[in-house]
């Protein structure tokens, strides 16, 4: 989309802007090497000079490769491979930046009447937003490479920065897959979360269908009660459940004579099921908004009983909502620490619990390997929810957004 016709800008302007950007980068490189001022001067001269030369080549592709090559060589000379990689980025950036300024492309997507100040603010704002996005995503990205650390450190070792294969290893992953504690807690999570999800999805879906009928006495109050597990601070829920489930547990073990281990799982599963319910209610009622009620009447008209109608007509249509509610319930249980800390006993230790003790007591880098695996799982879940949402909107005749 091109709003404005662009024209080439004077070389002086390009050089000044590029020199400023180069000076800014030079400041960091300079301080890292002892003298900030020298860095600014060298950076400004280097990039400013580049801005005077590159546009003259009249061959943008070649000019960019030239710039990349120059910075890679500079980086390699000063700091070996790590700096050479950074240099490649810098070279690519300045190659692009100089031409972006020179050709006037920065105005192409803005309305023709924007003033210079507005253009500057437009791009400053984008840079600010970019910084916030970096803030959002960096913590998640940082743990991934660190989980391949060959040392038991929580930071990048010089070997890792040199991209030395010696610096990397899979030993933390190996630890996760062979250590009994981690494996048992992983298994516990895989037992507890799905069963809790099934309970909250089945009860929650029924209740959501009930809630979306046209005449429900006390609808608001019921809704408030059902949503409350999401609102009440977890620590309060956890302490309440702690007393409640210890009584229930005593009753089940003492009076009814159930196995202690079994009772422990029942307690945690029921506690997690309650926590997942609000998510199911919210997503399923949302899906039911778009559900055309005359379909059920049509089905009844043709002789289907309510159960058949539910499974053959209503269920397929609201399924995307039910599944994404279920995924929310699953991640709630899979991610939950506070309640399981209070309600569960050591034999129900879940993965988050193990991570929590790991973080608080023996800080082991295996946590980073687990974290990476969990990030992968969340990416998979996120993708599924996104696909389901699109499908649901398609089914309901809305345009996918």
């Amino acid at each position, binding site marked *: 989309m091109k709003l404005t016709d662009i024209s080439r800008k004077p070389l002086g302007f390009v050089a000044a802007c590029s020199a400023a950007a180069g000076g800014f980068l030079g400041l960091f490189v300079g301080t890292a090497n002892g003298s900030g001022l020298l860095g600014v001067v060298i950076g400004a001269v280097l990039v400013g000079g580049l801005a005077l030369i590159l546009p003259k080549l009249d061959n943008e592709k070649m000019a960019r490769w030239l710039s990349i090559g120059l910075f890679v060589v500079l980086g390699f000379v000063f700091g070996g491979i790590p700096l050479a990689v950074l240099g490649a980025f810098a070279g690519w950036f300045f190659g692009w930046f100089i031409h972006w300024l020179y050709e006037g492309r920065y105005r192409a997507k803005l309305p023709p009447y924007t003033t210079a100040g507005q253009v500057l*603010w437009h791009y400053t704002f984008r840079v600010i937003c970019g910084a916030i996005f970096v803030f959002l995503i960096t913590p998640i990205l940082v743990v991934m490479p*660190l989980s391949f650390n060959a040392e038991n450190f929580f930071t990048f070792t010089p070997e890792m920065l040199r991209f030395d294969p010696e610096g990397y290893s899979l030993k933390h992953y190996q630890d996760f897959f062979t250590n009994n504690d981690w494996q048992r807690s992983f298994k516990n999570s895989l037992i507890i979360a799905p069963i809790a999800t099934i309970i909250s999805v089945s009860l929650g879906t029924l209740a959501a269908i009930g809630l979306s009928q046209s005449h*429900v006495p006390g609808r608001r109050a019921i809704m408030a009660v059902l949503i409350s597990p999401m609102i009440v601070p977890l620590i309060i829920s956890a*302490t309440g459940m702690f007393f409640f489930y210890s009584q229930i547990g005593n009753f089940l073990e003492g009076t009814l004579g159930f196995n202690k281990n079994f009772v422990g799982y029942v307690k945690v599963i029921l506690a997690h099921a309650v926590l997942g319910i609000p998510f199911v209610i919210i997503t399923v009622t*949302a899906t039911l*908004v778009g559900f055309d*009620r005359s379909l059920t009447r049509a089905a009844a008209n043709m002789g289907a009983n309510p159960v058949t109608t539910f499974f053959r007509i209503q269920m397929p249509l609201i399924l995307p909502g039910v599944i994404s509610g279920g995924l929310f319930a699953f991640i709630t249980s899979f*991610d939950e620490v506070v309640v399981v800390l209070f309600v569960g006993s050591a034999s129900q230790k879940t993965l988050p619990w193990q991570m929590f003790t790991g973080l*608080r007591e023996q800080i082991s880098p295996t*946590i980073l390997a687990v974290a990476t695996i969990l990030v992968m799982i969340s990416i998979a879940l996120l993708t599924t929810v996104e696909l389901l949402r699109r499908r649901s909107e398609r089914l309901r005749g809305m345009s996918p957004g």
Partner: protein
Amino acid sequence: MSDVTDATTGKRGPTPDDGLRIADSEQGGPVLSADGKPLKRSLARALRVQKLRALGLIAPLLIFVLLSFIWPIISMLMRSVENDIVGNTLPYTVEQIDQWDGSSGELPSQPLFQSLYYDLFLAAEVKRHTRLGTRLNYESTGMSSLFRQSGRKLDDVGKDYRKDFSAVNDAWKDGETWYALMSGAEGAETNESLLKDAKKRLSALDDTVLRGDVDFTPGAEISQLLPLTAREYAAFAVMAELIDEDEVATEKPLEQLFVALATDLQTADVSGYQGPQADLLRELKASDTITAPDYEAIMGEVDEDWVNTDTWRTIQTFAPAITSGYFLNAVDMRITPDGPEAQPESKQILVKLFVRTLIMSLIITGSCILLGYPIAWILSNLPMRTANMLMILVLLPFWTSLLVRTSAWKVMLQQQGVINDVLVWLGMVPDAARLVLINNQTGTIIAMTHILLPFMILPMYSVMQTIPPSYLRAAKSLGATNWTAFWRVYFPQSVPGIGAGSILVFILSIGYYITPEIVGGTKGVFISNRIAYHISSSLNWGLAAALGSILLVVVLILYWAYDKIVGIDNVKLG
């Protein structure tokens, strides 16, 4: 983003109550349905059936949530005012303590010391006295050790009486003698209510419901003759049979029985008594070695604190079954015999903690607004495709495990962590003066801002999406500057989004536990960490419940505000 709106406003066909309205508006005689009944009545029945069906669908979940969530929380919060532990452990003392005037400066009378002796003796036998000691220690230091040491020493006093009794007749050493004496003659009238009282007393003391048969019923005549002994023997019998699961008939009599009998014998007239062991009783009465116990002296011998009015005043202050003590503790005050007063300076931490929780939650909310607003703006003003791509960067943290994000921050913020390493490498921070970013408030604020940011962005985004960009252009074409256009036209329309996001973030942050616990150290913890500490380490559950109640009230007020502003049905996920 899936839009969540009130489900009842969705498309819907004709329903029975529409029919009712139509039937009402009909002129002339009643409209009949196909089966000849008035249409109005059949429609009313259809409406009722529909309501019942809806409730039937909701019922299982509603009952489940009420039973396993709402009720446990309410009963937990009740602990903040419950104080029946004093009455359960020292039932007779608490019954009588109101007769004593604490402000007189005099010690209580003999009967009160007597009740205390038996209450404490039984409590020590079932090992419940230390629990009360711990409870009273929250209010007055030293109570815990007083109760613990008294429990050990109480036996010694009775040992002298046991010796004296055996000197008169060796038969008093045997459990059978006592059993026969207290059971009364075979076939004679029995006193069932005494046993029932004893069961109730021990159930309250042991915090369980004692069920089962006790192989003993007190004789009616003997319980009238020796009321104190009968009462204590009944308690002894229940304890032996139901708690220790022994035979009461052969159980060795405990010391307090000798003391009780010595007391009873001072007033009892045994000359006319004909029941079992009557001769033994007369022999005792005749002997002059059995003296009346002086309970004040006994308790004074156990511990001199018992003849101190301060101890008694503490017990008196906390005797009622309902107390405001925990709530006062929660706001750094305490009950004293002279009414509520502020805690000593060194113990005032909770109000400070509440204030810190509020301030830090506000800072977190504020920084979420600052960081979230530009993101929400740019997401709603970029073309759909780009916005969806960038949305992933917001949703990925949202979907990632809380512990993953917390551990990532722990890794980044450490002294030897990524942020400090980068800063040192860039030369912005000298190696010797690395920034302290973790285990303090800074750490908590940074990590929690990151964790809660998606909860701010998502509601803001959904509000900003509905603001047409042409408004801004219109404002500018009418001559507004950039700032005026934004501040007077765009910003007011985006306020609902800020409000929704802020309340959500504030509610979530005020009750946070995990992140402050891991990155907060001691200075960056919240009130929830204190609640967890009182639940699992100090075991002061009443105080934990009081703190929890205050926190919950704050959250519920905010929730109510959220419901008013946004509506609970409008919560958006993903």
